């Protein structure tokens, strides 16, 4: 396939900017694949893997911008590359550059800084994070691709200085009402929550909010913190801090599976906690009760238990959580041809995908995924769904050189259309995550594909039922009620909770024999 590249020497841009340019170039007719990235060694390997090789790329350095295009013909390649500068200028016009380019200069401007938020490429994180710790700053590290050795070193150093390292790969924190990274505008209150998963924390804090409760702090720890390699360093420090914190009455821990060794240490520490504790470790719901600990099977159950521990009634919980609960239409399954009997889930939130798998598995369904509960459920080809399949579209397969599906719904919209034409699909399950740094109109970006998919299916035999959850509050900038209305107008059954939406899918599939 014809290809070409352009290099812009000494023009460094952050990843979101580059992906914005990439997105513009990829929409040009005839363009098959594009890459807009900095010329680091890692990125050069990535380009090589895409089959893009050129002497100019070999010679490019980490501060040089590389633009590569594969297209149907040479003329399209040339035209796309000629448009690069216009795309760059157009993107630059929407931002006001900062004159500050180093952590040291930043600290000269804010000498009283107490927190560094780091979203740099993974290979640069360790050195900058060390400098921040040396300067006495706590850390929120959103970046991934930081080695476990480096994470362990950073956390050991932080521990020796009493500093908190949220991350690496930390999506969400809310400290004293201030959302960092991806966070929802939730009410302040007396429930403190700790967790390694960004969307897990978002779902928990939103469920607490919807039930009338509030959050003192939500402390993200980074996705690897509960591994045996890291040993729960940040989790344990956060737990002690919330135990001392006068604004926190109840402490919750929401996580995906933890390393056995870490879990033993953590359980002992949780049992010794002087404040009431609620624990939800997805994938561990079959756990026997531990003295003094409430183990909850779902995020909803954990939120409800935390609310009750605060002395608030949990009455009206179900209706509060449901935007649209149309009830079961008895003829929904009857109208389907017999072979149309499978569920497909396409998720922006990794924890939503995980929790849905857990709920479906417990209902007796065999579920496949690119991010499965256990090795048995691993999907051979993530692009090819089989039977009941749930896809975590935030997985690396889909985010390499692309924006996360919480920011850019393009790939998910494409996959919705692909699943819609599969004659075996009966129900489509989606999640939408609102809040800071998420897409401005997450439903609007995708609803066209939902309508088109349902239309295509209606023209053939059968019908496609679409079920969605929205993780968000009325105070998020995306306008929760408008997002929900858009979905409902498209015939989607909408819930405020991933667990409830998943339960509803089970009801829809209940006629199938494999559901227990």
């Amino acid at each position, binding site marked *: 396939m014809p290809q070409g590249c352009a290099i812009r020497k000494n023009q460094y841009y952050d990843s979101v900017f580059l992906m914005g340019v990439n997105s513009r170039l990829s929409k040009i007719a005839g363009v098959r694949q594009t890459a807009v990235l900095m010329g*680091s060694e890692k990125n050069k390997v990535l380009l090589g893997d895409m089959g893009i090789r050129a002497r100019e790329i070999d010679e490019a350095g980490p501060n040089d911008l590389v633009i590569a295009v594969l297209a149907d013909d040479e003329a399209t390649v040339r035209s796309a590359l000629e448009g690069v500068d216009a795309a760059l200028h157009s993107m630059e016009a929407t931002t006001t550059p900062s004159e*500050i380019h180093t952590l040291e200069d930043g600290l000269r401007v804010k000498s009283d800084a107490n927190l560094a*938020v780091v*979203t740099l490429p993974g290979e640069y994180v360790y050195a900058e994070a060390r400098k921040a710790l040396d300067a006495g700053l706590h850390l929120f590290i959103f970046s991934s691709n930081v080695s476990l050795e480096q994470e362990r070193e950073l956390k050991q150093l932080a521990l020796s200085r009493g500093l*908190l390292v949220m991350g690496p790969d930390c999506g969400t924190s809310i400290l004293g009402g201030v959302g960092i990274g991806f966070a929802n505008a939730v009410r302040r209150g007396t429930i403190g929550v700790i967790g390694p998963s960004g969307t897990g924390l978002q779902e928990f804090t939103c469920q607490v909010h919807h039930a009338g409760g509030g959050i003192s702090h939500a402390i993200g720890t980074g996705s690897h913190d509960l591994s045996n390699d890291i040993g729960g360093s940040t989790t344990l420090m956060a737990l002690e801090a919330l135990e001392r914190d006068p604004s926190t009455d109840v402490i919750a821990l929401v996580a995906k599976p933890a390393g056995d060794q870490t879990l033993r240490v953590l359980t002992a520490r949780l049992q010794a906690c002087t404040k009431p504790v609620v624990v939800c470790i997805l994938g561990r719901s079959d756990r026997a009760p531990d003295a003094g600990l409430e183990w909850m099977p779902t995020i909803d159950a954990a939120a409800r238990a935390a609310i009750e521990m605060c002395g608030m009634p949990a009455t009206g919980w179900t209706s509060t959580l449901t935007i649209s609960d149309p009830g079961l239409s008895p003829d929904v399954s009857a109208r389907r041809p017999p072979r149309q009997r499978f569920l497909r889930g396409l998720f922006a939130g990794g924890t939503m995908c995980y929790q849905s798998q857990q709920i479906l598995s417990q209902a007796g369904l065999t579920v496949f995924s690119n991010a499965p509960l256990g090795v048995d459920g691993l999907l051979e080809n993530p692009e090819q769904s089989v039977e009941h399949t749930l896809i975590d579209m935030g997985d690396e397969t889909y985010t390499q050189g692309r924006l996360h599906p919480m920011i850019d719904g393009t790939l998910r919209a494409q996959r919705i259309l692909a699943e819609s034409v599969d004659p075996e699909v009966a129900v489509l399950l989606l999640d939408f995550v609102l809040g800071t740094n998420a897409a401005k109109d997450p439903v609007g970006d995708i609803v066209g594909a939902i309508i088109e998919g349902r239309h295509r299916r209606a023209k053939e035999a059968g019908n496609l039922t679409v079920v969605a959850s929205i993780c968000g509050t009325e105070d998020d900038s995306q306008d929760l009620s408008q997002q929900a209305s858009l979905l409902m107008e498209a015939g989607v059954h909408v819930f405020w909770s991933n667990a409830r939406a998943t339960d509803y899918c089970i009801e829809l599939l209940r006629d199938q024999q494999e559901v227990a």
Partner: protein
Amino acid sequence: MTEPIDDLLRGPLVIVNLGLRGFAESLEAQADDVVQVDWLPPAGGDAEMIDLLDKLL
């Protein structure tokens, strides 16, 4: 004894944002004290030179 993390939770947050501008903008929208660093790789991104500089400084 007050730990540094207790001060962090008590607030206010004073933040240095290294990298994505959108993160700083969302913090500013919450009326937080934040400085944006349009970070550039030191030493032109040369890993060996960065390592050398880190050892010298």
